């Protein structure tokens, strides 16, 4: 019996030493927070998961606004970044990657779209706030945030300077309310142009808003959805009677849920794009549902739009045709689906 007691005592005495040696308590898996290339994991040493999550919310918030600006559209903007020297820098570059930006790694501050970012602590009448900013070219986004027991929350409007499209930005602040608590924050955009106004609202956070970690909106989903909605908003609205139909192609997506286009479809778009003339419009019919509401069809339409934009076709030269009822499809039907493209040329 004494022997066993001695062994138990030895094991429990060893525990604190092991814990100190391996620093278990405060080291989360940092992979989801790091950029995929040129990351500096050591900048996150000693940071808790909560701290990293807070920085991720801030970077997601700023980048979700950035990608909606005309001047910094991810489809047409390549960003230049330096190797990050801080945890916030790592998280910011990761958010830019997730938003679909092309990222070029530079040794100094080369490039028209060099990414600058910063974090400043301020003592204000409202208490301690932290001010985060992100700048690309002439565009700067800035917002103050405050940290409390529930998490991190905005404490100012988002200031966007240097953009002609700042007033069109729609902020999705649901990522903050999911933290729960009993708080109130202001949501909206302020710009440097008096003629640009955006809706300003107050967001109430309640205890019951608290969402379990695995049910919260991830950075990838929020930025992906924002980008999709943004692309959908930028398409042209045309009067079909002003145009002559030139060409037509029917792309086939392997399943209802896939976003993979495949080489054959990509080649068809490349051939259609080759014949583009200024004032031409590509009309995309992706929706064949009777009720006219189909998220996966919208996603496919955006996918085709993105492919055209890759060939330098402007988004104003793309339009989404209304839903047409082609055939009945059960919701569980995952067989191949068509997307029709018509190339339209403006009548003289």
């Amino acid at each position, binding site marked *: 019996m004494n022997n066993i007691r001695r062994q138990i005592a030895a094991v429990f005495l060893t525990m604190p030493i*092991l814990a100190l040696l391996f620093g278990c308590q405060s080291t989360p898996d940092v*992979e989801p927070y790091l950029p995929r290339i040129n990351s500096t994991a050591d900048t996150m040493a000693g940071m808790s998961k909560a701290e990293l999550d807070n920085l991720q919310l801030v970077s997601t918030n700023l980048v979700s606004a950035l990608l909606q600006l005309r001047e910094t559209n991810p489809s047409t903007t390549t960003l230049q970044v330096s190797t990050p020297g801080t945890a916030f820098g790592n998280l910011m570059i990761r958010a830019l990657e997730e938003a679909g930006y092309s990222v070029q790694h530079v040794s100094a501050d080369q490039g028209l779209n060099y990414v600058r970012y910063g974090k400043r602590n301020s003592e204000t009448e409202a208490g301690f706030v932290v001010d985060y900013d992100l700048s690309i070219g002439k565009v700067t986004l800035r917002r103050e945030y405050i940290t409390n027991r529930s998490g991190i929350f905005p404490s100012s409007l988002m200031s966007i300077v240097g953009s002609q499209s700042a007033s069109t930005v729609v902020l999705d602040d649901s990522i903050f309310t999911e933290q729960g608590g009993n708080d109130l924050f202001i949501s909206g955009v302020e710009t440097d142009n008096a003629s640009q106004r955006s809706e300003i609202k107050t967001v109430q956070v309640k205890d019951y808003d608290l969402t379990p970690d695995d049910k919260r909106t991830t950075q990838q989903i929020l930025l992906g959805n924002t980008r999709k909605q943004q692309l959908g908003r930028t398409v042209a609205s045309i009067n079909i009677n002003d145009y002559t*139909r030139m060409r037509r192609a029917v792309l086939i997506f392997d399943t209802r849920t896939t976003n993979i286009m495949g080489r054959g479809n990509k080649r068809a778009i490349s051939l259609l794009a080759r014949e583009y003339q200024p004032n031409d419009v590509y009309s995309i019919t992706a929706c064949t549902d009777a009720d006219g509401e189909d998220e996966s069809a919208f996603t496919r339409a955006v996918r085709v739009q993105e492919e055209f934009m890759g060939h330098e076709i402007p988004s104003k030269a793309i339009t989404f045709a209304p839903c047409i009822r082609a055939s009945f499809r059960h919701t569980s039907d995952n067989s191949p689906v068509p997307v029709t493209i018509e190339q339209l040329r403006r009548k003289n």
Partner: protein
Amino acid sequence: MIKTLPLSQRLAGAQHKVIAAALLLLGAASACSSIAPNLGANANADANNTLAPLSDQMLEDVLSVMPQLIEPRLNSIQFGPNVDELDIIAARTLAKAGYGIQRVTADQGINFFIANQFKNEAGINTMRVSIGELEVTRVYATEDGNIIPAGPFELAGTRITINPALSLLGSTVSNNAIVNNVEYTSIAPIDGGIPTISLLSNDIIQGVVDQATTAPGLTSINSTKLEVKNRFYDVAGTFSNLINDRERVAREVIIFPNDSMRLGEQGKQRINKLLNQFSEASDLINVIGCSNGTTRLAIGNEGLALGRANRITEELLTLGVPNRSILDDACWSEDSTGVDFPNRGVVIDLMRSET
């Protein structure tokens, strides 16, 4: 019935449990302190895709000629969501070379990246990298534990000249002119083919109505599945918008034997002669396959004209001309009088943009 163990055995069991618990805690402590390598969200999506030894060197050798083909500072390379080890190595190598790296959710982008390592028909290690419609392939051998190139660079979808000696492993084969070389070829066929792109213009629709059923068709589908107008009726052609503001800098006419699609040695030489003047950045090649007059073949003049244009297009692709640079057109009729094109030949025009 409950079995009761003797006290000594129960104590021994407790001892084991304590030690096991301690070991578990120790394991947990050491596991949670490690920082996971950043391989991307789905880096291990395909656990069976294990790399052959030294495949990283093969990949880096193929990638080392990319800056000669695609300008790094001006281009981005797209990587899909399901990255494997080859993708990770490639993304790092290309980022270091100055390319923008763009992570996409599906297969977006004109420079979408795919790397494949496989053994070719002869069982030799082969590395193939596709970036958009450009493909670079090379075979490799192992010598004294080192990887060395065993064949030339095979380029598809481009006619750009590269210097293979500047590649990563170029110096290891500098005295072997056959290996230290470049060959041009066509890109791999597309599984499932390309969707047909039809013409919709009103004159075509009206023309179809007006024409007697026995008359030659007004339109047909070319080798790239693009519907084209019959140039017997439409002298300007389907691609007039693309070539109107270009200057014709060379023309070759290749005559085919009666009812034949055989190109022959002389025809191949003429194509090579034309390609010596071809510039990928500024030129389009307009191929007009013709068959006018009587034919005994069941496919008729239409089939012959398009077949001849297709034969030339195929030859151009095999020699590395990008698909986007070829405009594949045709003219056909049973009437051979008053036609601006040869009765049984193909006209190939090299059209250059001044800009």
